């Protein structure tokens, strides 16, 4: 259990092409998170900015310093966090570390503006994450997804519709999410008929490229608030200002080269990070009420659910087809639409998962957006870098 509380959250709408600059996106998300918290700008001791692709895409470099100036909080300690697709969750953990060490308030912001470059440029930049010997073969992240998806369907005798069902569920969850990139339902047939990306994965099995930002105000449980509308942390009902605790934050690396893994379906970093996060929080998978799972590809949602112990190997696809992971299921997964439909701006994604889970725990959302039953007490997020190169898990509790 940590001493860190999520005292405020905010994000921009995720969209295919934003009119705002990357600093503009980051600033908007930050302002919304601070406004959502009991803290004032003067309370913030550090700023941690997550951004993955600035150098590759030519967006604002040194984003943490630029953002501090844009927000008018020069003087705070700043740093930029980069961990490819898991940049957002790693930035969150940097903020948790900062308040546990310093006892104050940290502002964590993640942002990405992927529309500034051609699709092939972004694909090439992300494709450079792979091992040099993989790069020589022209491998991309969807390549790994295609190999794993084919192996998963073969080994578990699962129908192709099992992957499409993940996409359909996450698109359905995004329809009522005003921050999501894709707010339209898709059918299993539409998913099955979409263009092939890496067989058997098709377009609707893959997350999009996205512009967007998300932010958190993370405070030590003893940090005093000086904001105009400062309210006590333990003020009874779950109002907008009531914080959510970071029960644990843990990460782990796996092999860099995907083929180095003893099993093509193994995601060792997911398993290890999950075990560490559950142990540090003193809970197990059965205690989780709602989860955000890194569904960059539909098959990843299934593999991660199994590696994390939510389902036995080879059974997550049946659970998905049976509706167990739907908004009204036993374990709602990706209630905001996931990477698939909410979008995947690399630097912001992990933070947007935390934002979604805080909203769910606090009960802030309208009925059609909330998971079924009482407000969840325990939530789990996993943000994954590369194809399981690195996994970052966060457990939140009411």
């Amino acid at each position, binding site marked *: 259990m940590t001493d860190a509380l999520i005292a405020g959250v905010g994000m921009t709408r995720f969209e295919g092409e934003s009119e705002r600059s990357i600093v503009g996106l980051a600033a908007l998300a930050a302002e919304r998170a601070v406004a959502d918290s009991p803290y004032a700008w003067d309370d913030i001791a550090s700023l941690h900015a997550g951004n993955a692709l600035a150098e590759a895409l030519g967006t604002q470099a040194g984003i943490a310093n630029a953002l501090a100036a844009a927000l008018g909080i020069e003087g705070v300690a700043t740093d930029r966090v980069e961990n490819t697709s898991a940049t957002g969750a790693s930035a969150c953990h940097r903020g948790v570390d900062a308040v546990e060490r310093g006892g104050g308030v940290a502002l964590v912001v993640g942002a990405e503006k992927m529309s500034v470059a051609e699709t092939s440029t972004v694909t090439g930049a992300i494709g450079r994450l792979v091992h040099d010997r993989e790069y*020589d073969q022209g491998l991309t992240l969807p390549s790994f997804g295609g190999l794993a998806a084919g192996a998963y369907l073969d080994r578990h005798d699962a129908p192709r519709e099992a992957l499409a069902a993940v996409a359909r569920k996450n698109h359905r969850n995004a329809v009522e999410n005003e921050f999501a990139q894709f707010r339209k339902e898709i059918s299993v047939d539409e998913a099955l008929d979409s263009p092939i990306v890496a067989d058997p994965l098709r377009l609707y099995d893959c997350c999009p490229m996205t512009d967007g930002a998300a932010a958190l105000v993370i405070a030590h449980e003893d940090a005093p608030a000086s904001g105009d509308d400062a309210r006590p942390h333990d003020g009874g009902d779950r109002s907008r200002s009531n914080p959510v605790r970071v029960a644990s934050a843990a990460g782990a690396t796996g092999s860099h*080269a995907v*083929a180095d893994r003893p099993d*093509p379906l193994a995601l060792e970093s997911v398993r290890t990070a999950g075990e560490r996060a559950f142990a540090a929080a003193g809970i197990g998978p059965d205690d989780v009420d709602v989860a955000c799972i890194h569904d960059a590809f539909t098959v990843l949602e299934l593999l991660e659910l199994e590696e994390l112990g939510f389902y036995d190997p080879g059974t997550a696809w049946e659970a998905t087809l049976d509706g167990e992971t739907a908004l009204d299921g036993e374990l709602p997964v990706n209630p905001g639409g996931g990477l698939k439909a909410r979008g995947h701006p690399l630097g912001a994604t992990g933070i947007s998962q935390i934002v979604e889970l805080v909203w769910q725990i606090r009960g802030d959302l309208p009925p059609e957006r909330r998971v079924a039953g009482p407000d969840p007490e325990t939530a789990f997020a996993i943000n994954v870098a590369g194809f399981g190169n690195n996994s970052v898990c966060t457990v939140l509790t009411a």
Partner: protein
Amino acid sequence: MSDSDSSTDGVDRPDDGIALDEPVAVDRAFRCADCGRRWYYQRRRCPDCSGTDATTYGLGTGELVAVTRVEMTPPDVRSPNRLGLASFDGVRLIAQLADEALSPGDAVAFAGAHRLRDGDEVLRPRLDAVDGDPG
């Protein structure tokens, strides 16, 4: 395969690991000189014994474990790019396939001379079908 690094300040460092940057042929893997563990993707130390001395050897016949056909590829890579995950007696790798018809369970070996990415100066082999049992 051990090397000796020289830093720019002129201070020589002792041999302390397997070279990461020396070119290795596509069809060769590494074997630890201390424990015999084998692997394909360069690393400074043996994953089992942390030994820092390794030799390379030629891969023989392997077995395809999974295949995919990638339609959306980087600008300098063929499209579609047919890829296979293959196991060579426990050493796994992913490589381009020469034959569209290859499928899991097929025996394969590196063969031929192909340009894997546009601009490559060296032609290299792809995985192709072979007769016989996987090694």
